[in-house]
């Protein structure tokens, strides 16, 4: 399970950040660690998307999808030069 970690893009509903958090970044980190103690956040995004990217196992990705404030958890895709 752990070996099958992949990168996911997690879209968050910024306006649903719980009052207990002052920074979206902290809320994102807490959401991530709530499903995985070892997950590594790659980037957090705040302009063209609201959310972050992280390495997750499929089970962790599914669990995150059910977490409050998560809009979608999309597997990373690979693009090619044209």
């Amino acid at each position, binding site marked *: 399970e752990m070996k099958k970690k992949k990168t996911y893009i997690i879209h968050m509903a910024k306006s649903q950040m719980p009052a207990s958090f002052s920074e979206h970044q902290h809320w994102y980190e807490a959401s991530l660690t709530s499903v995985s103690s070892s997950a590594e956040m790659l980037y957090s995004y705040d302009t063209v998307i609201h959310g972050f990217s992280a390495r997750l196992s499929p089970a962790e990705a599914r669990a995150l999808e059910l977490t409050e404030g998560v809009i*979608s958890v999309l597997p990373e895709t690979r*693009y*090619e*030069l044209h």
Partner: protein
Amino acid sequence: TTRTPEFLGLDKAEGLVPEMNTEGDVIVGVLDTGVWPERSSYSDAGLGPVPAGWKGMCEQGTNFSASACNRKLIGARFFSKGYEASMGPVDESRESRSPRDDDGHGTHTSTTAVGSSVPSASLLGYAAGNARGMAVRARLAVYKVCWTGGCFSSDILAAMDRAVDDGCHVLSLSLGGGMSDYYRDSVAIGAFTAMEKGVLVSCSAGNAGPSANTLSNVAPWITTVGAGTLDRDFPAYVSLGNGKNYSGVSLYSGKSLPDSPLPFVYAGNVSNSTNGNLCMPGTLIPSLVAGKIVLCDRGINARVQKGYVVKTAGGAGMVLANTAANGEELVADAHLLPATGVGEKAANTIRSYVLSDPNPTATIVFSGTKVNIRPSPVVAAFSSRGPNSITSEILKPDLIAPGVNILAGWTGAVGPTGLAVDSRRVEFNIISGTSMSCPHVSGLAALLKGAHPDWSPAAIKSALMTTAYATYSGGEGLLDVATGRPASPFDYGAGHVDPPRALDPGLVYDITPEDYLDFLCALNYTSLQIASVSKRSDFKCSGERTYTVSGLNYPSFAVAFSTASGSGVSSSTTLTHERTLTNVGPAGTYKATVVTSAGDGGAVKVAVDPNVLEFKAAGEKKSYKVIFTSGSMPSGSVGFGRLEWTDGKHVVASPMAFSWT
């Protein structure tokens, strides 16, 4: 680039740009393989200070110093976390963990878009001329997101996030990732917010042509660019022992072949390998190849690698044969030995000769660079084609631009073939793809943004589309390399970009972010899907409204008539689309004309109501309806037409594609 500025009439265009032009303040962000900052194309001579408010920066990294930037190259960043998380650490022996371009693609696209003027540019003497980008006074910011193993969406999103934050006005992405729905496509998602913040996103349409339904980057808020040819060629013809000559193209620049013809062999006959005809590494038998010219078939390995395989086997030269997959598409390569590429028809005739003649001989005659080639432009065979498989009622590609045999800046890390064995180093290189046509439009968008700073991304895209041309000066339709016959709006969208006219389009079809949200409602997107794309987690489609895809104020029309279920034949149907035009020129009275002829277009009656629009002031908006009435047609029929509004000076043209499903 050389030749493209003349071909596009940029010298004329610059005369059209108002003096108050702010092109120098327009910043183009290029997401690609990075930049080779030492190139003359990044000279900042004559440029004023870096535009105020710019937040980008020059990131230090391997082989890249923070001082590499200047007033032309005002930003350079790299993003590799996503790539490294999936592929392991960047192999620093092969590529630089920095904005440095070790590949060449990013230097080529960024200099095409906004490169400074460089006199006497050429590739080993080919395509010589003054090289310049589309918007020579625009600034450049480079965001390296593509590495040897590909371009990963988490890196692309991080770069788009940064580029919009830094203050780019145009983003250029010559990359694609298949065809997924907008809410799953990171480029489409990033481009939505970029559009909301007034940033135009221009993307390559893909190189999967000439098959249909092969487009990438088809979101309506993206400018999707296909590729066409220039009026320039690099002829190198094959002269056979039977006295016949066959035209080909080549950028070979070394020692010529001897005047007398050489023995000519077919690769498939001088190999022990089953696919020996493809000239793949280790498949040719040196004793049977030495000193001869070898006919190799295209496929699987790179064209230039085939030449190297022949060279290492002792071959004197290569004739590279197109197959059905490439048809008559002739893409020139800087081969490492005397070589030329020929179209499918010539290839088949040459192959018959070499297989039937008892003593086949040949030579190759190189003729350098020729211009004023006609017909041009022609739609490139490789250019991906519609219909739009994500949303059939949005016509894509939007337009085409030069993408075949384009000269532009190149890396100093690899030679013009990109092969490791190629020890040559060149400042400019000639390559082909919709990767090359996209930055042409990105740079032209910057030119328009400089001339009209208040135009939205949709208005700029509309201006580029409604002024594009779909016929040659004699009135015949643009041809398609793949068929040799006239192409269609599924191949070229609105047509070929025409910068001088785009700078003064008369009227534009503008679209607001809210209009795009209505479009997503028309697609029956869920709230979560809309939130993914638009970042509006509280947006809800209204239960009281009727949303239609055709309601999007798009500068082109794709009309889908549905047949009665199962009957295979459509009943007579009437569909109505509404559009709104905004006057961006002087007061004027515009009259509508419609031509429906191509394909089954004649089966559609088109009425425009009203068909006269009078504009009294700039900024004024007027709406009209187009009523399409189709007779009964077999399912699978396709037809085309064109709607034009004109005030006698401006022509505001929209292609119409009809399909019966």
